[in-house]
């Protein structure tokens, strides 16, 4: 059965190749997208992330209980001092947390902040890193002596960032900027700046010795134009892949900062990292309180990683048929 199914698919594809006229204006990105759709790992990653985004967007309107109201303490069900925290029940699907709040509602609402921090932090890192790396790569590849000096200066600065342990760097940035959600985002983003910068720089330098750059130079095209319309689009693919992978680590790092007590100062606001940190005092009573947010973080990171790896494969010119 599976064999005939596979055979049929093969025949269909042959038909596609032979008969279908090639669409005009089909870009490399669209081709990459086509390959992406055929990759089961990419589909799995996309489904996980789709669910995650949906929960983050609409979850807060659908939760059964208020995520910050200590319902369990108010009605006397939760007495954490005496180690009484009720678990899964029909009314409270994941039970209560140590302050008598509905754990399920907190998980759902927490998804939003987790996603928000991850996306903003990654975007920050991508923007700053690409700016630095792009400038360095373009000036090294196209500029003369001064270009190489600018590149040297920028990259040594990045090396200093890279030399610091990432968590230490993030902690010091939060310490300098003060505790706020924004400084968590900046701190987590800052950690990924060197990665993006080095990646884009390397890829731009590699591209700058290609024939089409020489051809464009021979036509008198200006250097900034070459950098923006020739080098950048050809160098961006690995950076974008890295961004999806960074999203996963950003979420984990943001959770780490929360765990260390450097997260959102509004400690009542549900966030998976904070929930994980809060659970550590009650591991012997209700280990579930640590397991739920941890599983949430792992699944989300897995989704981003699956999609990122699949994107890397789809965009890698060496793996093309």
């Amino acid at each position, binding site marked *: 059965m599976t064999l005939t199914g596979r055979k049929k698919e093969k025949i269909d594809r042959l038909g596609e190749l032979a008969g279908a006229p*090639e669409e*005009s*204006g*089909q*870009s*490399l*990105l669209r081709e990459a997208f086509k390959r992406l759709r055929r990759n089961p790992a990419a589909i799995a990653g996309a489904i996980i992330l789709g669910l995650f985004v949906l929960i983050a967007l609409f979850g807060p309107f659908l939760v059964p209980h208020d995520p910050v109201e200590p319902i369990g303490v108010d009605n006397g069900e939760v007495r954490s001092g005496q180690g009484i925290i009720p678990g899964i029940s029909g009314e409270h699907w994941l039970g209560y947390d140590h302050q008598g709040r509905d754990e399920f509602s907190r998980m759902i609402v927490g998804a939003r902040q987790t996603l928000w921090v991850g996306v903003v932090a990654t975007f920050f890192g991508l923007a700053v890193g690409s700016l630095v790396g792009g400038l360095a790569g373009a000036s090294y590849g196209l500029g*003369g*002596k001064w270009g190489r000096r600018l590149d040297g200066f920028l990259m040594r600065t990045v090396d200093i960032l890279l030399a610091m342990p990432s968590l230490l760097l993030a902690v010091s940035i939060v310490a300098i900027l003060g505790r706020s959600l924004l400084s968590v985002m900046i701190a987590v983003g800052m950690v990924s700046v060197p990665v993006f910068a080095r990646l884009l720089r390397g890829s731009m330098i590699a591209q700058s010795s*290609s*024939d*089409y750059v*020489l*051809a*464009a*130079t*021979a*036509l*008198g*095209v*200006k250097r900034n*134009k070459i950098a923006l*319309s*020739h080098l950048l*689009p*050809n160098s961006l693919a690995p950076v974008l892949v890295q961004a999806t992978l960074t999203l996963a680590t950003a979420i984990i790092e943001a959770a780490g900062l929360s765990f260390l007590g450097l997260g959102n100062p509004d400690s009542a606001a549900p966030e998976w990292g904070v929930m994980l940190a809060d659970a550590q005092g009650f591991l012997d009573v209700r280990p579930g309180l640590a397991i739920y947010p941890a599983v949430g973080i792992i699944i989300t990171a897995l989704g981003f990683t699956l999609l990122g790896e699949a994107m890397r494969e789809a965009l890698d010119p060496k793996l093309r048929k």
Partner: protein
Amino acid sequence: MALLEVKDLSVVFARKGEREVRAVDGVSFDVDAGEVVGLVGESGCGKSVTSLAIMGLLPKRGVRVSGQATFDGMNLLQTDERTLRDIRGRDVAMIFQDPLSSLNPVVPIGLQVTEVLTRHRGMKGEAAKKEAAHLLERVGIPDPTRRLKEYPHQLSGGMRQRALIAMAVACAPRLLIADEPTTALDVTIQAQILELLKDLVRDSGTALLMITHDLGVVAGMCKSINVLYAGRRVESAPRRVLFAQRHHPYTVGLLGSIPRLDAPKGEKLRPITGSVRDVLPWAEGCAFAPRCFNRVDRCVDGPPELVWTAAQHGYRCVNPVMEAETAK
């Protein structure tokens, strides 16, 4: 005065801790306005480096360029980068060997053509698109408005080279340098591209410096031909003179290694023995001597000088082939 006068052009690649390589060694030649001049030699003889040096496209580090390349009274080798960028594409344009890698793979053809128009002719938007379509049509690309939206990988090899030629002639340059424009193409397409170049040159009065390893390519179109070997010009003559009589054994060998339809039946091709690596440093004698069929002891006494005959025929050889028959 000639449009382009190259005089004593030398290019030395010098890297720290490595032996210097003299890729081009005192090459001189002229290109008159509207004229087609051929630069012929096998791989590694310095012909591409010559063209890159004229365009100022060699990397600055580790490369020493000396001599003169005077274009329209201006020595391109002494000109600053900013002025060069204005000249490139507008007054002097270049066509490269591999059309696929010379086009940006992620940018549609149209954008790459309009880019040149915007840069040098200040055209924008619809006007630039219209002119780009017109240019593609002029180089023989059918359905140009559709092709403008396509990406390089969707065009055939010949089509890509046509697109590159369109970009090169977009600003009606006075000099076009074609560096092996047909090497990456198959034979029928080669003929088409050569025909196209010939037409463009004839219609627009553009001078063409044709760089190739194939004497057959230049045979049909060049007014004069320069043969390079190991970085030096070994023979130079107007086309008719050269094809009637070749003095330098290297040129004789280049032509002898090409199959001819009018050759007597059963005649074998005579390849040049050895490879371009078997060179003697020019300072010690003729660099071609190790591979030469006409070698005599005098060949390695010292560097041979370029000798000129009355018919503007120059050759760098102490024991030249004097009769066409002896070459047979």
